């Protein structure tokens, strides 16, 4: 019997050894990849941001979500940028002017170098344009009706020529980030240098973290903060807690609930700005003509069912504004065209007069499409119920096949919760994206929810090609009124960009593009 005991001693020793080895393994693994600082709180000269999406690169060829802009622009810059007034301001180009409808002239700022000392050259710009054009699935390419050709005049000046007029080229060029031509490739760049106020010191793609260091040779005003840590915290509740405890300094793109939870807390300030985004409860325009929703009067009647003020005030905590047109008021070229009115009795009687009874609507949306999306949808169920319209909700998880649904390939639906933003800051971009559908595009289901209206599309086309600003404004207003009168959505609202910061973060100016220049920020000791 005792003969078996050594075996047991052995087993315990073995266990300990195994456990020790496992611990060691994990330890090594981590020290190799984690960037653990000694304390949880950011240092005196370090700013910590927590983004809700993982920043997989500092390039924007493939994707660009709002918060990424802040960080991307801290490292790479474009010829222009969208300024605080939603108008283009010069960056790497000291001037950017239209000479004729199809020709622009730009002059590079003198003496600007990348953070590694190389000068910025014209061929960097032409290579950048080429790479953005070649990359598949580009986020940026969609906004360019065509990519301009570059002709150098001298060391610093060049023409940008296009076949058709691109009156908004100065705004569009803000989307093109400039990288040394030798390093640029038709893909999302993972590394490399830029001209921005910060350089990348280290990053961990797996964890989505970036450590930025001040660029001591920056051409503009040197940033006040030496270091910026960018973290990725996907859960909104985690970001709120991290800001409360001072673990992070800034969280952006937060929901109205989080704003409500954070406002009034000592040490925390909420910043809001208007946004370039429009969130809508859009009708399905692929219904057969016999369907009630094909009748503009029915669409209008249904909109009376929605208590916009209650949604704005109670569900969205006054963090949004009810839309007063088909574009957000913050966009350049926006025109006010009407209001959404809550009048359930009128909705009922209108539907009755139109002979619509027993209407059943299916509402679809993707989780996270806009803040408090599920709460809004659940509230809509109740509001439609109150006018005798039954509804069914179908929520799609990210990565699901909502695209096939939206295109009408998977199943039928009536209302879609969807957001649309105009990163150029221009109303025309949004109008073209949503209301300029043509029968040809509809063949491949490439129109916005089947919206094809010849008259509206013609008006938009007129506005897009007009070089004269006063005339363009008139055409734009006309186009927006035309779109509004077709009652494309049951309700729409313009969210605010909301950001929360610790009070030690000074001089943060949130723009309507939901980004802020990192170089302007100062930290209170």
């Amino acid at each position: 019997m005792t003969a078996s005991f050594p075996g047991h001693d052995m087993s315990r020793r073995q266990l300990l050894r195994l456990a020790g080895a496992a611990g060691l393994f994990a330890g090594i693994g981590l020290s190799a990849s984690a960037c653990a600082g000694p304390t949880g709180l950011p240092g005196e000269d370090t700013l910590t941001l927590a983004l809700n999406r993982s920043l997989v690169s500092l390039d924007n060829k493939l994707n660009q979500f709002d918060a990424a802009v802040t960080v991307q622009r801290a490292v790479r810059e474009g010829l222009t940028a969208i300024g605080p007034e939603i108008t283009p301001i010069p960056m790497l180009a000291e001037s950017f002017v239209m000479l004729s409808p199809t020709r622009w002239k730009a002059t590079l700022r003198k003496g600007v170098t990348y953070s590694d000392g190389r000068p910025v050259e014209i061929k960097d710009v032409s290579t950048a344009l080429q790479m953005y054009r070649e990359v598949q699935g580009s986020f940026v390419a969609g906004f360019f009706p065509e990519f301009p050709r570059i002709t150098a005049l001298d060391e610093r000046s060049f023409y940008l020529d296009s076949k058709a007029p691109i009156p908004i080229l100065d705004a569009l060029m803000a989307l093109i980030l400039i990288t040394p031509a030798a390093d640029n490739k038709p893909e999302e760049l993972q590394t490399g240098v830029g001209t921005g106020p910060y350089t990348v010191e280290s990053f961990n793609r797996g964890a989505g973290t970036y450590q930025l260091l001040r660029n001591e040779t920056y051409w503009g005003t040197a940033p006040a903060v030496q270091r910026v840590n960018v973290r990725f915290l996907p859960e909104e509740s985690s970001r709120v807690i991290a800001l409360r405890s001072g673990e992070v300094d800034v969280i952006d793109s937060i929901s109205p609930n989080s704003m409500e939870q954070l406002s009034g807390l000592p040490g925390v300030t909420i910043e809001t700005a208007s946004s370039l985004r429009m969130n809508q409860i859009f009708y399905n325009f692929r219904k057969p003509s016999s369907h009630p929703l094909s009748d503009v009067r029915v669409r209008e009647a249904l909109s009376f069912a929605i208590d916009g003020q209650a949604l704005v005030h109670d569900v969205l905590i006054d963090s949004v504004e009810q839309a007063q047109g088909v574009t957000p008021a913050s966009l350049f070229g926006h025109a006010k065209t009407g209001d959404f009115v809550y009048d359930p009795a009128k909705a009922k009687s209108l539907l009755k007069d139109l002979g619509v009874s027993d209407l059943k609507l299916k509402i679809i949306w993707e989780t996270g499409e806009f803040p408090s999306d599920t709460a809004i949808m659940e509230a809509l169920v109740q509001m439609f119920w109150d006018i005798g319209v039954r509804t069914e909700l179908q929520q799609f998880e990210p990565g699901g096949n909502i695209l096939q649904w939206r295109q009408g390939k998977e199943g039928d639906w009536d209302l879609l919760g969807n957001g649309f933003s105009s990163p150029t800051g221009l109303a025309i971009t949004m109008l073209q994206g949503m209301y300029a559908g043509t029968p040809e595009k509809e063949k491949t289901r490439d129109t916005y929810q089947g919206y094809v209206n010849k008259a509206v599309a013609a008006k938009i086309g007129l506005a897009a090609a007009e070089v004269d600003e006063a005339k363009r404004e008139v055409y734009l207003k006309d186009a927006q009124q035309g779109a509004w009168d077709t009652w494309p959505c049951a309700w729409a609202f313009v969210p605010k960009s909301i950001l929360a910061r610790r009070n030690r973060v000074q001089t943060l100016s949130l723009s309507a593009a939901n980004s802020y220049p990192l170089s302007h920020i100062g930290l209170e000791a």
Partner: protein
Amino acid sequence: MSTATHITQAPATSSAPSAVTAKALKASASARRARSAKIKLWAGAILTLLVFLPIVLANFLPLADPNAQNLGARRLPPLSDGYLFGTDQLGRDLLSRILFGGQTSLMIGVLAVVVSGAIGVILGSIAGFYGRWADVLISRVLEAQMSLPLLMMLLLVVALFGPSIPVITGVIAIAQWPEVARLTRSLVLVEREKPYVDAAKTLGLHKISILIKHVIPNVFKQASLVILLLLAQAVLLESALSFLGAGPQRPFATWGRLISDGQDYITTSWWMVTLPGLVIVALVVGVNLLGDALRDGRPRRKNRKEA
């Protein structure tokens, strides 16, 4: 000595030589085990019924409509006028949502256990009874499933077929059948060596009818003991799935979704996460205790497999 005194003294005198007193008996291991099983049985039954009864009777209780919104009464704390458990972000009665949500969760749980039980018993007994390739095949599938990233596979399957109640039930059943199958297989392995199986064979009964008529009924009772434990797991799994977004469509409440919705409000409205969670815990603890007690209460073979 009179017979009378002998009789009256009998308990005392007879206990003295064996040194076993009633007190010692009461403190003996088996008596203690029986007592703790009884405690667990009662505690389990009470907890289970405490959650189960209101859920089943929810339609007859004076409750607010679980989907009726009152935007003026959003996020009221518990015990505020008329709302025992408070209200949620749209002013809906949380208690009512928990109870009606519980109906969905419980229904899915019960159905999943029935389905997984059926699959598990059938495949497990085939593997145990026939052995050879059937055993190899089924055991291999069992093993493969153990090494799969289970939750991810379940999320995938839900994405594949859409988050409807039958799909979620099926998915949970897929997750659970190996447990039943393994247990059944080991029970059948023992059972098939018993003389009555040989006797039946000698009598010329077909293998299938021996399996169905004799072997399965004999192991069924033991295999069925895991049902309660499986039910507890199924409820947990369902809540995890709907927490991750793979739950039945809105606006119907499920427990996991109540918690995931409430997560956004934890710094201000603690009840929206805490209370649904406590109800899940109460039910699952109750069911687990019941299952434990029933199993411990069995005289033998209690040390086979456990979850």
